[in-house]
């Protein structure tokens, strides 16, 4: 039973750009890593226009499904996988990470990237998940994805011709991305 009320969030605003992004933030592994994959996409508003001032963070397990516990995301040493990435979008709303695909953190669980979206004009941060393309075949077996009906597709990355992962984020519209609220047990 919690006793203190949580501090509310506020928009990240327009001026995070010189504060939050850091060198190497989008590179969880070097692109020469044998299992390196690119996770990229664009962030769109309700008119289908790219949002040029959004910030995307990812947090993930490593390829074996282990939860990283090592420090050093802000000053990467080039060897240690810390599982955290941060990327500001460009003027076309595009973000891009270089990482590895996460493994399952427990038997039978579908692996995913945990994603947080921030933007000017977004009053609070939003959580979503990026599942791997293979999840398409397992939607029925996954309690969460199957609870979403047709909208589950918005959480599954597409694989491009080079084998990289594409994940667009739609704040509104027919393809509106599913955003999450995590259940709290009390």
């Amino acid at each position, binding site marked *: 039973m*919690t006793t203190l009320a*949580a501090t509310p969030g*506020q928009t990240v605003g327009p001026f995070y750009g010189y504060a939050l992004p850091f060198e190497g933030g989008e590179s969880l592994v070097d692109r020469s890593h044998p299992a390196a994959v690119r996770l990229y996409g664009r962030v769109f508003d*309700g008119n289908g226009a790219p*949002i040029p001032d959004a910030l995307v963070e990812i947090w993930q397990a490593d390829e074996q499904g282990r939860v990283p516990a090592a420090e050093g995301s802000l000053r990467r040493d080039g060897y240690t996988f810390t599982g955290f990435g941060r990327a500001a979008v460009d003027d076309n709303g595009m973000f891009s990470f270089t990482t590895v695909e996460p493994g399952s*953190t*427990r038997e039978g669980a579908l692996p995913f990237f945990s994603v947080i979206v921030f933007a000017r*004009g977004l009053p609070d941060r939003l959580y979503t998940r990026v599942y791997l393309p293979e999840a398409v075949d397992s939607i029925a077996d996954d309690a969460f994805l199957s609870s979403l009906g047709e909208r589950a597709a918005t959480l599954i990355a597409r694989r491009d011709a080079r084998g990289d992962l594409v994940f667009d984020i739609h704040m509104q519209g027919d393809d509106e991305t599913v955003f999450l609220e995590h*259940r709290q047990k009390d």
Partner: protein
Amino acid sequence: MTDSNNPTPQTQGSAAQDAEETQEGPIRATDPLATTASQEQITAEIVEIETEYRNGVAAGKPVEERPRIDYPPYRSSLLRHPTKSLALADPETIELHSPAFGHRDVSWVESDLTIQHNGDPIGERMVVTGRLLDGDGRPVPGQLIEVWQANSAGRYVHKRDQHPAPLDPNFTGTGRTITDENGWYRFQTIKPGPYPWRNHTNAWRPAHIHFSVFGTAITQRIVTQMYFPSDPLFALDPIYQSIVDQDARDRLIATYDHSLTSPEWALGYRWDIVLNGSKRTWTEPEEGDH
């Protein structure tokens, strides 16, 4: 949790589709149009929403602890907030953990925003300090806190901030720290100035410091803004007011604390940050390693 996070799709519709053919007044306005609204108009919308909220709470509706995702007086939110309900999810293993940050990531000098250049920045030197706590009031050590802010004239070192106030060559306005073993953080800085923005005509933000905070679970992540006591701009600001509950938004206001003020040096402010939930509310599905 609260209906602030569950705007009904029926009333909101898809702005992408509706923007062209329906003009329902300012609710549909996009950024460029929005600048034509007056402060009186924005204030009236703020008051109307809050009145409706208070009446709702009085009638038994839940208290809203978070900002409304759908808050029309903040015009740039119109096309940028989700219109469908958030999907309730049981946190998976990865979401019950968070990235580890430590002294490999942040050096102690980064918590002093007044020593990043050759000279002293202009403005009111101040210290802000407080504790990072979980919902049970227990300190949360070892977490990354990042801050950014305008200088004392209300100007950011950012290419998109073009308002005609001076930059300070001795002030960048960014800092980082890691909470200590008792959950404490502390920054020394300069009090930021209020600044204009283009939400509507003559829109000004109350002075604030942006905070970015991690907890032990990624679900506890907060990005927010800390304000100063008794700011006359509070009632006029649609960002601060996007938290419609007075008690909830008051949690963003630091307290002036004379015991933190040091003679002939700096004014002291206290601001505690409370993360949602606690580690104890979830049992790990497997042995956690951090």
